[in-house]
């Protein structure tokens, strides 16, 4: 018997399992590693009974670059570009979290202007990342790219601002230990002003297009539900946690970079379903715009980079610093042995840990629900695999 015949026989079994209700075996379907809805090389192995998901298991590691090992051989400053590539959709937030941890190790005071600039770019990054997340989420719900392309426009404008500031759009490498690499260029603030002026209208457009859309409601409401207790116990963070109703935002709970000086609110959901996650992200964009407004209005003058020797060796010790990245709690745990490079470099990846409850969220729903759920968690495979 040839292999083809074997496969055929196996397939026959599959066909039966797909259609019969009794005495059948479940069908295993691989979503990914190359699949339109897995946003990268991520593989979800679902066991189906008809269209109902009975088990979901993720297989990851296709993008593993062993960054934590590589970082042990590079100086603290040399590691900043690595953090860009961990979460390539929120490079600024990654830069920031790493720099905060390194600053704690080195005991550096960051000048106030640098803090304000960091907040500005972290919030811009949040807008860009949420635009991507919401756009691809609607795509996973089956829309034909229209909301995605509209939201890409906003993201594009944010990336333009990144480019005029640091020359890069995606992997910015902008933050430095003790501040930021360059001061703001002259043309940035007017661009940002016009961006802030346009955004409310565009958000109103999205809300008109999406929020009352009955099909979107039917697809996302009551899908991928996770309870509040389970969400906390599964260490979920970011919009996924807040959608369950937990008002936990590190910008409020543990303010860094002077977030305590800005007025903003933490939107929380109620049901913990996919639609709430989407709504929370939409609401967070508005809050980010609020913060940006305040940053521009109270932008302090002064140096943007602390005076720090290039070849600084921290004292032996360790530091864990986290920021509220667009995806959740992004932490960096650095251990120093007094050498020029970190002895241990660990990133707490919110994308990976938010997947802890993926199985619980998808079991019992249909295959289409599982995909919507995965889209609503907003994963970045570079961050999962590092």
């Amino acid at each position, binding site marked *: 018997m040839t*292999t*083809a*015949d074997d*496969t*055929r026989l196996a*397939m026959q079994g*599959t*066909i039966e399992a*797909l*259609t019969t209700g009794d005495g059948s075996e479940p*069908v295993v*379907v691989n979503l990914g590693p190359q*699949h*339109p*809805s897995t946003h990268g090389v991520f593989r979800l192995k679902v066991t189906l009974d008809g*269209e109902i998901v009975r088990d979901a298991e993720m297989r990851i590691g296709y993008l593993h670059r062993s960054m934590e090992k590589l970082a042990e051989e590079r100086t603290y400053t040399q590691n900043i570009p690595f953090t860009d590539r961990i979460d390539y959709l929120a490079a600024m937030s990654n830069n920031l979290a790493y720099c905060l941890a390194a600053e704690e190790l080195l005991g550096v005071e960051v000048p106030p202007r640098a803090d304000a600039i960091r907040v500005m770019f972290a919030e811009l990054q949040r807008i860009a990342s949420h635009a991507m997340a919401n756009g691809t989420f609607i*795509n996973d*719900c*089956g*829309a*034909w*790219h*229209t909301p995605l*392309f*509209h939201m890409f*426009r906003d993201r594009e404008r944010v990336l333009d601002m990144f480019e005029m500031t640091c020359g890069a759009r995606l992997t910015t490498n902008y933050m430095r230990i003790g501040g930021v690499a360059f001061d703001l260029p002259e043309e940035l603030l007017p661009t940002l002003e016009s961006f802030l002026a346009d955004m409310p209208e565009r958000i109103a457009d999205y809300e008109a297009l999406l*929020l009352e*859309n*009955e*099909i979107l*409601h*039917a*697809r996302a*409401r*009551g899908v991928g539900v996770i309870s*509040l*207790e389970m969400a*906390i116990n599964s260490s979920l963070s970011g919009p996924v946690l807040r959608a369950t*109703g*937990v*008002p*936990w*935002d590190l910008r409020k*709970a543990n303010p860094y970079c002077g977030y305590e000086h800005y007025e903003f*609110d*933490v*939107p*929380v*959901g*109620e*049901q913990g379903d996919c*639609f*709430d996650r989407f709504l*929370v992200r939409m*609401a967070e964009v508005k809050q980010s715009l609020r913060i940006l407004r305040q940053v521009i209005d109270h932008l302090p003058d002064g140096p943007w980079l602390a005076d720090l020797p290039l070849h600084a060796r921290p004292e032996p010790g360790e530091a864990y610093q986290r920021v509220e990245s667009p995806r959740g709690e992004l932490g960096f745990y650095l251990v120093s042995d007094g050498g020029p490079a970190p002895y241990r470099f660990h990133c707490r990846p919110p994308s990976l840990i938010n997947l802890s409850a993926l199985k619980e969220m998808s079991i019992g729903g*249909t*295959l*289409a*629900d599982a*995909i919507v759920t995965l889209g609503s968690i907003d994963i970045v495979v570079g961050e999962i695999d590092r």
Partner: protein
Amino acid sequence: MTDFTGLTSVLGAWYDFRDLNNLQRLITEWIADWGPDWLASIITGVLGALGVLGVIGPTLLILIWVERKVIARFQQRYGPNRVGPRGLLQPVADAVKLILKEQLAPRAADKLIFFLPPVLIFVPGILIWGVLPFGPRMSVADLNVGVLFLLAVSGTAVLVIFMAGWSSNNKYALFGAMRAVAMSISYEVPMVLALLTLVVFSGTMSVNGIVEWQQQEDVIFILLFPLSAIAFFFAASAELNRTPADISEAESEIVAGYHTEYSGMRFGLFYAVELGNTLVVSGFIATFFLGGWWLWGLDQWVPSWIILLIKTGAVYFLLIWTRGTLPRLRVDQLMGFCWKALVPATLLFVVVAFVQRTLLISEGWDTTIALPIMAVFNIALTLGAIMLFARVSRPAPLRRPARIRMAGAQIGGLRAAREVASRTEEPQFQVGGD
């Protein structure tokens, strides 16, 4: 002025140039002069088929461009604009690329059944054009069971899709095929019922007869039976696998559905037939519900097929619009919508049509007065039915609104969450709900 008398004796009125049946009669008579009559019927048949193909082929190429351009405009981008003037040659370039691509077949595929579908899918796709009337006597075959023919032919496409999905030996393809079959069987029912309304009311099963009835009574069917029109539109978009009902080739779920394993021009054939079906279904919607080639007398001055094309284009634009706007429904939701909403609603309108037809024929009501009254009544009934359905059919999670609250000063875990949730004042914003 040239003397047209010889020609007009064959053609009838001068404007009957546009009527292909006259041309056919001309050719038939000419061949009958010197050859056997079976040759005449074969030659005219082949010419008619070539004519349809000659129209469809180039139209498909333009349609790809139109669809991509329109969708691009919905999405605030330019769309194809590099190959040829305004990107018009882009579809040609795509076709060349698809033809040059390697044809792959899965090793474990059922070879014969795998190779047949891309060709077979063309048969219903082309046949269906045969009964579409472009003018008073301008269709390839004006069958007196045209409506049934349309349904019968479009129903066979399901088998081809099933063959494609089953033989590919791929789970995505099989899922797509099973979904397509289930959906196609289901949505045929409201489609048949919607057309049955027209058949009952106009008393003919010929497609051209339905148009002529609308011409005679000076009314278009979308005004008389709006719900049938809506149901037919939705059912047709489901049969065409277009968003919001494209579950059988849902990209984000099952990659490309039943044609996942087809590469190169085989995929291209599926794609072309899908587009062609979209066009022909738009044409049938225009014919059945918008009056087809007839437009309140304008058809005497403008060639009828131009009127039909404009109406078809409008419906086609509507199909692109829905595709560019709406997300996709889930399988169970789509089935539920068909069986719980469309079938009862269209059935209701079959009964309504039956009663109204009886009033017109047996009671001898004056159509000029009765038809407007019936139209108003039916439109009101349609609105009522839609509102009733929207109220009754909502699934439980959608009945309460989705709320977003602002945490304010509350930051924390379980305890803070409960405090935020127990706040009685209006949440920051809420959407949906009853």
